[in-house]
C-alpha cells in the first residue's frame, strides 16, 4: 500500500511539473515556481544627471534590476556620492537617538503602520534633515532641563533624609546623655559641644573639645570600603554612623534606582576634616550642610519639603512636554526610517555607476520585464521634470548572467532550502519545483506518526492563517522567524505525515485498531496447540502465520495493529521503514 501510494504521488509530482511547464509558456509571471532560471539581458542605461536619482528610485521600487559595480577599483570614500551617503548616516543617527528616547520615556516602541512611502526627492531630503535636527535639539534641551531638575530634586530628597536621620543620631546622643556617667566613654555619648563633657575625668562642666561633623549621602555598595578607608586614613580617630535610606532614589542621568545611605562623621581638628573631605570626594559621596540644633533642622526640613513639591510640579510639566514631543515623533518615525533608507539605497546604487560625463549604469534584468523597466525609466524622467529621456540599451555579452528564480510566498521556503545547498547556474534546471512534494514526503516517510503529524499540521495551519498578523509584527526572535519562514513546509510535512502515519498505523506511537486485526489467537488456539495454562504462564508466544493469520482478509489500510504488542515490533518496523526510505532516497538520485 505504501508503495502504491508513493507511486501515485510521484505521478502527481510529474504531472504537476508538466502543468507548470505548460503554464510557463503562457504567463511566466504568475506561476510561483520556475523550472529554469529566467533569461536575463544585460542592459546599459544612460541617465541624465538630473533624472538619474528619480530613475534609480523607480528601478528600486520595481525591484527587477541588478546593478553591476562599475567602480570596483575606487575606494568606498572616494566615490562621487559619498557625501550624500554621509548625510543619510547622520540622519539615521538622529533618528536612532529619537527612537531611543521614545523607548526610554514613553516605554513603548514606535508603532508601525506598515506604510510604504515613496522615495523622497533630493529637495525633500533637505527638509527632512532640518526636521530631524530641530527635533533632536528640542529633545536634547528637554532632556538637559529634566536632568537638572531631577538632580535638584535628588539633592533636596537626600537633604530631607539627612535631616530626618541625623535626628536619630542626635536623639540617641541626647538620650544617653542623662544615663551615662561623666567618666564613661561610651560611643553613643553626644559628641557635640556644650551638651556634655566627654570622657573627662573630673566632674566640672567645662567646655568639651569641639567635635566637627560632616553629614552626607553615599551609595550603599560603597559603604564598607568607605568605612575601611576612613579607619585607615584617620587611624581610627573618626567616628562614623550610617543608616540606610529605605526607598531607592532615582539617578538623574541614567534613570536607574540607586540605594543610598545617610552617614555622619564626627572628627576633631582641621587636618582630619580635610582628609575626611577628600575621602568623601573620592567615594563620590555628596556632602550637605546640616545644622546642629533641632529647631534649625526642623525649619530646614519644612523648607526642603516645600521646595521638593515645587520642583515636582515643574518636573511633571517638563515630563509632559517631553512625552508630547516624543509621541508626535513616534507616529512618523517608522516612515522616516524607511524614507532615509530609500534615499541611502539610491545613493549607494548611484555610487556603483560610472559618473564621468553622464551617468552610465550597467546591470541585468529579466528579458521578459524589459518593458516594465523601460516604463519605470520613463516614469523617473517624468518625475524629475526633464525632457531628455533615459536611454536603455540591451548589450550582448559573454558574461554569465545571474540566476533569477521567481517565487511566491509558498515556494519561497523551498527555494531557500535548495539555494542553501548551492544556487543553480544560469538556465540550469531548478531543483526547487521537485522538492515541493518530495521534501515533505521524504520527511513524512521517516516521521510516520499521524497523531504528532496532525499536531504539526495544525500548528502550521495556525501560522498560515495568522500570516498577516505575524508579518506585521516584524519580530526579531531568530527561532520564531525560522519556524514562521518555513510555515508552508511544515504544513505539507504535517499533512503527509498524517498520511504515512496512517499507513504505518502509528498514532502517538501506538497503533489504532479500527478494522480488527487479521491475526487471531483466540480462534486458532487449538490449531496452535496452546492451552489456557500456557497462556497464563508464558510471557510470549510465537504466532505461526500459517495458522493464526486469516488469509484472505488482511488489515485493509496500514500495518496490522497486532504489531504494536509484539516483541519484535521495533526490529521489524525499523528495518521496514529504513529500507523504504533508502529506496526512495536513492531513487531520487
Amino acid at each position, binding site marked *: 500500500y505504501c508503495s502504491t501510494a508513493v507511486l501515485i504521488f510521484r505521478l502527481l509530482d510529474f504531472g504537476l511539473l508538466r502543468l507548470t511547464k505548460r503554464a510557463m509558456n503562457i504567463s511566466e509571471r504568475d506561476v510561483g515556481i520556475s523550472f529554469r532560471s529566467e533569461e536575463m539581458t544585460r542592459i546599459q542605461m544612460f541617465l541624465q544627471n538630473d533624472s538619474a536619482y528619480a530613475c534609480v528610485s523607480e528601478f528600486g521600487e520595481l525591484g527587477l534590476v541588478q546593478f553591476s559595480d562599475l567602480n570596483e577599483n575606487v*575606494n568606498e570614500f572616494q566615490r562621487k556620492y559619498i557625501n550624500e551617503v554621509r548625510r543619510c548616516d547622520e540622519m539615521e543617527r538622529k533618528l536612532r537617538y529619537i527612537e531611543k528616547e521614545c523607548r526610554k520615556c514613553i516605554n513603548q516602541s514606535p508603532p508601525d503602520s506598515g506604510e510604504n512611502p515613496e522615495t523622497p526627492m533630493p529637495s525633500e531630503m533637505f527638509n527632512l534633515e532640518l526636521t530631524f535636527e530641530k527635533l533632536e535639539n528640542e529633545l536634547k534641551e528637554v532632556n538637559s532641563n529634566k536632568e537638572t531638575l531631577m538632580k535638584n530634586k535628588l539633592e533636596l530628597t537626600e537633604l530631607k533624609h539627612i535631616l530626618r536621620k541625623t535626628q536619630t543620631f542626635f536623639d540617641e546622643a541626647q538620650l544617653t546623655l542623662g544615663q551615662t556617667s561623666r567618666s564613661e566613654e561610651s560611643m553613643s555619648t553626644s559628641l557635640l559641644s556644650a551638651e556634655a563633657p566627654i570622657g573627662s575625668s573630673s566632674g566640672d562642666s567645662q567646655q568639651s573639645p569641639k567635635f566637627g561633623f560632616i553629614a552626607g549621602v553615599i551609595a550603599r555598595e560603597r559603604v564598607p570600603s568607605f568605612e575601611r578607608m576612613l579607619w585607615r586614613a584617620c587611624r581610627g580617630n573618626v567616628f562614623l554612623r550610617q543608616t540606610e535610606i529605605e526607598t531607592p532614589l532615582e539617578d538623574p542621568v541614567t534613570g536607574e534606582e540607586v540605594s543610598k545611605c545617610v552617614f555622619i562623621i564626627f572628627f576633631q581638628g582641621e587636618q582630619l576634616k580635610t582628609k575626611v573631605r577628600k575621602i568623601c570626594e*573620592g567615594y563620590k559621596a555628596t556632602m550637605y550642610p546640616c545644622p546642629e540644633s533641632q529647631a534649625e533642622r526642623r525649619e530646614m526640613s519644612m523648607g526642603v519639603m516645600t521646595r521638593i513639591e515645587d520642583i515636582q510640579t515643574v518636573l511633571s510639566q517638563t515630563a509632559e512636554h517631553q512625552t508630547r514631543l516624543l509621541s508626535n515623533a513616534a507616529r512618523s518615525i517608522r516612515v522616516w526610517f524607511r524614507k532615509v533608507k530609500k534615499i541611502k539605497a539610491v545613493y549607494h546604487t548611484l555610487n556603483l555607476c560610472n559618473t564621468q560625463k553622464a551617468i552610465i549604469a550597467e546591470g541585468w534584468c529579466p528579458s521578459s520585464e524589459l518593458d516594465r523597466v523601460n516604463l519605470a525609466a520613463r516614469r523617473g524622467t517624468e518625475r524629475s521634470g526633464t525632457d531628455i529621456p533615459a536611454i536603455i540599451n540591451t548589450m550582448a555579452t559573454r558574461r554569465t548572467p545571474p540566476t533569477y528564480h521567481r517565487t511566491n510566498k509558498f515556494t519561497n521556503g523551498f527555494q531557500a532550502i535548495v539555494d542553501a545547498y548551492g544556487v543553480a547556474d544560469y538556465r540550469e534546471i531548478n531543483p526547487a519545483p521537485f522538492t515541493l512534494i518530495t521534501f515533505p514526503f521524504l520527511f513524512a516517510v521517516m516521521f510516520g506518526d499521524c497523531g504528532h503529524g496532525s499536531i504539526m499540521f495544525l500548528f502550521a495551519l495556525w501560522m498560515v492563517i495568522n500570516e498577516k498578523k505575524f508579518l506585521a509584527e516584524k519580530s526579531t526572535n531568530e527561532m520564531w522567524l525560522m519556524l514562521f519562514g518555513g510555515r508552508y513546509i511544515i504544513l505539507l510535512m504535517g499533512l503527509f505525515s498524517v498520511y504515512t502515519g496512517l499507513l504505518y498505523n502509528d498514532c502517538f506511537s501506538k497503533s489504532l485498531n479500527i478494522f480488527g486485526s487479521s491475526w487471531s489467537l483466540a480462534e486458532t488456539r487449538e490449531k496452535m496447540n496452546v492451552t489456557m495454562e500456557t497462556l497464563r504462564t508464558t510471557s510470549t508466544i510465537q504466532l505461526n502465520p500459517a495458522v493464526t493469520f486469516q488469509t484472505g482478509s488482511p488489515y485493509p489500510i496500514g500495518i496490522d495493529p497486532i504489531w504494536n504488542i509484539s516483541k519484535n515490533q521495533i526490529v521489524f518496523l525499523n528495518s521496514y521503514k529504513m529500507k523504504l526510505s533508502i529506496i526512495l532516497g536513492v531513487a531520487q538520485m
Partner: protein
Amino acid sequence: MGGGMSGPSFNIDNGYLEGLIRGFKNGILTRNDYLNLVQCETLEDLKVHLQSTDYGSFLANEPGPLSVSVIDDKLRNKLVLEFQHIRNQSVEPLSTFLDYITYSYMIDNIVLLITGTLHQRSISELAAKCHPLGIFEQMEAIGAVSTPAELYNTIIVDTPLAPFFLDCIFVQDLDEMNIEIIRNTLYKNYLEEFHNFCQQIGGITADVMCEILAFEADRRAIIITINSFGTELTKDDRSKLYPCCGKLHPEGLSALARSDDYDQVRAVADYYAEYKVLFEGAGNNPGDKTLEDKLFEHEVKLNVFSFLQQFHFGVFYSFIKLKEQEIRNIIWISECVAQRHRTKIDNYIPIF
C-alpha cells in the same frame, strides 16, 4: 594547577573563551586595511573605512565633527568590553591570569592620579582619564594621601597590588622623580610575580608567556638605562629597577647597571642574539626606525607567534597587546590625517 591544562581538558573550562579570542584575533586589521586607512583625507573617511572592519559602526552614534580623542575613546571601549566579557566568563586559573593583565593598568592609573594630584588637578577630571581596565574602588581617594607610606596603608593595602608595593614604602615623599621610581618598582615586582605565576601554571602557557615576559623585562631594563642617562638617577637606584625575569639576568643586568652611554648598552645587547638584531638598523636618522619601534616590532612578532599554539593562556595576553598596538597604529594614522602631516604616516607597525 599544572595538570588538566593540556589538550582536551583545557577545553572544559576555557574552550569557549579561547574560541572567542581567536575569533576576535581574526578581526585585527590587516596590512590591506592599513593601506586603505593611510589613503584617507579626513577623519570621516577613516570612519567610513573602519565601518567595513570588525569595528563596525562603533562611531555611528557620535554627533558632530569627529576628533582623534573621541576615536581613541571608542576604540578603547570596544577592547574593554571584549576583555570584560571574557573576564566575566572565566574561571580559575584563567581569571587570575586575566587579573594579572589588569594590574599593569592599575599601576598606570595610580601613577596618573598621584601625578595629577601633585599638579593640583581635580580628582574627577583625572578619574575620567584613567584606563577602564585598571579601575578599582579605592582609586579616587588618592587625593587624601601625601606620602607613600600613607598611600600604602590606606589605599594599596586592599588592592591586589599590595605585595608589589612593599619596596616602595621607604621612598620619602611623592615628587616627580620618586613617582617614576615608584612606578618602575611596582612594575618590576608585578612582572616578576606574573612570571612566577605563569611558571606555576606550567605547560604551554609557561613556555609562551615566560618568553614574552622575559622580553618585556629586558626591554624595560634597556629603556630605563637609556632614559636614565643625564638624569639624577644613580646607578644603584637604577639597577634596583631592573626586573629579574628576563634573559639579561644576571650578567646582562649587572653590565647594564655599569653602563654610561648608548654605545655601552649596545655592547651589552650584542651578547644576546635577538637583541643584537634589534640594535642594528636602529638610529635617530630620518628614514631609520627608532629603537622603540624595533622593540615594538619584536613584541608584536612574539605575540603573533603565541597564536600558533593551542590550549594555553598566552593567547589572551597576546590579544590584548596586539589590540593595543592596533589602537596605537590607528591613532597615529588619525593624528597624521587630522593634522595633514603625512610624511611619517607610514610609521605604524603592521601586525598581520
